[in-house]
């Protein structure tokens, strides 16, 4: 078996392991390529609290300044704060220094265009060409600009969310537990809850790059938050990932409701006030359709990835959108997966309805999603997808992204990871057992195909 690569340069940016492949030289070249690509102008940068953040940021600053950009440094902030400030400051683009849910030895650069969206596949390819060509714009010293520190980025973000999403209904003082997981939202999450007029209890607020729990806000990683909700009799618990774009919810009984429902509950609140199209990806729960149907609103599905969802939202003039991993996008506030937006919407819903989170979640009890993955060497990926198309040729297929198959009692999607040598299967049915059985069967087939191909 080949060594697991520690560097991934792709149209969605560059990610790698610090101390190994992600060298400052490579980072400073990539930053120069980006500065060359967007042209001399304002660039907003921010980072998550990884231990390598300072090193990577210095290399990014050197590259951007060298290419003549004016750098606005937000410091340690959620990725959606970078995206929001790109638009607020009228910048040409942004760079978020974060490897989101990857382990702490990883870091990455994510590139944001002047519209606050991540670069699309096409634009990512153009950037990559410039990186490889190596002919970067180099400003003379007299045309370079020292980076400027922006100290109120989180406050601006919180203000934008509060202003965009109105105050909570009065009469019910909500108690809210937040678990930013020692990530980029350690300041922003409690601050937002306060600004919305709720009572906040925060855990895991030390952001020193040594995460107190695994970065992904999956149910199995939220034990401390569940405990905090129970012991403080909170109305709800919120958990974020390392860079503050994804949101997971724990109900008032200390039970995670599953990150798929973050988008559903948030969208429900938006559609109640402003009906309109909803956009999500192919791999997200169909509870979205059930929710939207109640408001008489259409749902559009895209390939997986924030850039794909955001672009379709713009094309369809969607009022809300996002992904099943807990990423909520409200175009009126921030054209980005933004956990602060998700929190504000869900809290507004709670305050307005007077019901408990568990009751809201119970409406979608019939949508059970299971996510599994297995190792798949890259040379077998195409074969696996071909065999899957043949295997389920008699079923309705959607081939926009991997292979999505509609079954009589649910659906599943099989797709390769963009970042690791694995294939993932996401299955949904009306019970956990059935969803599991579907996903297990798919992975058994995949294992058989790989074994046959390997001889």
């Amino acid at each position, binding site marked *: 078996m080949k060594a697991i690569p520690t560097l991934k340069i792709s149209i969605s940016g560059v990610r790698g*392991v*610090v*101390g*190994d492949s992600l*060298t*400052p*030289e490579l*980072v*400073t*070249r990539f930053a*120069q390529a980006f500065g060359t690509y967007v042209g001399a102008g304002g660039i907003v940068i921010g980072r998550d609290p*990884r*231990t*390598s*953040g*300072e*090193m*990577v940021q*210095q*290399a990014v*600053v*050197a*590259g951007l*300044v*060298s290419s003549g950009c004016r750098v606005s440094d937000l410091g340690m902030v959620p990725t959606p704060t970078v995206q929001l400030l790109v638009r607020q400051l009228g910048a040409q683009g942004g760079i978020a220094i974060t490897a989101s849910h990857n382990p*702490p*030895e990883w870091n990455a650069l994510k590139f944001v265009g002047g519209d606050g969206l991540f670069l699309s596949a096409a634009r990512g390819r153009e950037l990559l060409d410039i990186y490889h060509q190596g002919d970067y714009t*180099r*400003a*003379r*010293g*007299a*045309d*370079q600009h*020292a*980076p400027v520190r922006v100290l109120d980025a989180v406050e601006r973000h919180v203000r934008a969310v509060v202003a965009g999403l109105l105050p909570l209904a009065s009469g019910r003082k909500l108690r809210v537990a937040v678990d930013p997981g020692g990530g980029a939202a350690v300041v922003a999450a409690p601050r937002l809850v306060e600004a919305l007029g709720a009572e906040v209890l925060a855990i895991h607020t030390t952001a*020193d*790059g*040594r995460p107190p729990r695994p970065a992904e806000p999956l149910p199995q990683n939220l034990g401390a938050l569940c405990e905090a909700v129970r012991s403080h009799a909170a109305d709800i618990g919120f958990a974020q990932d390392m860079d503050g774009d994804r949101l997971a919810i724990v109900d008032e009984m200390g039970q995670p409701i599953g990150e798929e429902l973050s988008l559903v509950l948030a969208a429900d609140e938006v559609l109640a006030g402003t009906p309109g199209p909803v956009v999500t990806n192919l791999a997200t729960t169909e509870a979205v359709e059930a929710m939207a149907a109640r408001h008489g609103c259409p749902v559009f599905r895209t390939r997986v990835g924030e850039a794909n969802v955001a672009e379709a939202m713009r094309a369809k003039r969607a009022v809300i959108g996002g992904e099943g991993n807990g990423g909520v996008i409200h175009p009126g506030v921030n054209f980005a997966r933004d956990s602060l937006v998700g929190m504000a919407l869900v809290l507004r819903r709670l305050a307005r309805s007077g019901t408990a989170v568990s009751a809201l979640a119970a409406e979608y009890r019939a949508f059970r999603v299971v996510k599994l993955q297995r190792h798949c060497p890259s040379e077998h990926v195409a074969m696996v997808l071909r065999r899957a198309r043949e295997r389920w040729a008699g079923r309705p297929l959607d081939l926009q992204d991997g292979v999505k198959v509609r079954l009589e009692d649910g659906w599943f999607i099989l797709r390769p990871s963009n970042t690791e040598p694995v294939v993932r299967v996401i299955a949904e049915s009306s019970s956990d057992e059935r969803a599991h059985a579907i996903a297990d069967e798919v992975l058994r087939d995949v294992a058989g195909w790989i074994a046959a191909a390997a001889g």
Partner: protein
Amino acid sequence: MEALKIGITGVRGVVGETLTPELVVRFAEAFGVYTGGGRVLVCRDPRPSGPMLQAAVTAGLLAVGCEVVDLGICPTPTLQLSVRPLGAKGGVSLTGGHNPPEWNALKFVRDDGLYLNAAQGEELLDVYHQGGFARARWDTLWTRVATHDAIPHHLERLRACFDVAAIRARRPRVAVDYGNGSCARLLPAWLKELGCEVLAINDDVELPFSRLPEPSVAAAAQARAIVLAAGADLGLVTDADGERLSLVDDTARALSEELTLPLAAEAALVRRKGPVVTNVSTSGLVDRVAARHGASVVRTPVGQAYISEAILEHAAAVGGEGNGGVAVPELQPSHDSAATVGLLLEHLARSGSTLSKLASALPALAVHKLALAVPPRLLFSALQEFREAVADVAEASVDLRDGVKLSWPDGWVHVRASNTQSLVRVIAEAEDPARAEALALWARERLVRVGAR
């Protein structure tokens, strides 16, 4: 692509052309590896390319596991003086020194505050060329850059070195043209402590350089005007990073930067007898001053690292070079214009003399300087051919420690490759100006024969 010099004095180039962030990152990584990890101080002069270089240097140092302490904009000697008290393994000063503003450079300082010497510079270059630097893992990286103001320590050390009371009693009137260089962060406080009445111009490090940073007679124009208008006792013309200094006397005459060392040597030898260290290319004026005090002169190759090590080796009373750089060993064996100012003001105060009197007491020696462009690929072979061509010049004594220096009883000529540019420098000196010029032209003619322009 001639605007890059990677050599034992560091790496120097034009930002926007050859001095790229990736090159600087790699060099910083090499230096971090060379120091063995640990604390490294970083400072810069006010050039507009400084922030870019500093970010690149910081990234490289952090990546190989160093702790970076950012001293901000300050003179190089301020950094050098802070290395030991801060327990640092070394320092990097980002400064183009006397070079024009589009240039910049990384100068490497070792754990005793001196520049890397030639052998160490070669070792650093080997590390750089080998590449494959051992980088720190995520759990051993330093996660933030500390900032530190090193100016107070420099002032404290300066106070301890000079007779502040004597200078204060005299209340000298001093005109200064900082040229918006780093000295504007140090000298104002030092001159204030010395009780000077100060008339300063171009003292804002946020503004572009007001003139070329090389202190010279031409650069002294504004300082002269102020000395004249205000009736100042002396004028100071500083470089970008606090090493070199040229002077304007009380009659508003701009003194050549070659006079800074002889004047400082006079002051130093009155304080304490001891050898004087300078390079082979520096004016013989310093020999005359040393002779007056019965002191010896030690000559080294050109470059501050040689001067500093010779100062320590010979327990020298003073050292320096003809470019206006002077080291006062009681403070540190490195060029430090704040120390030079202290030394001169103390001497003026104690002797009751004036700078014009001191200057006129120096013998008149004529210096003739030329620079010839030579393509980089021919630089050292041209010098080698020149050396062979003049090997049998009658009656001259030959010094080959740095280029070729030929000395006759009535004058000398020195031919050497620039450390910083693709040039051959010719400098000739004699009591008779015609003789100095003749010597320089004689050397030039022979250099042109072997390919110089």
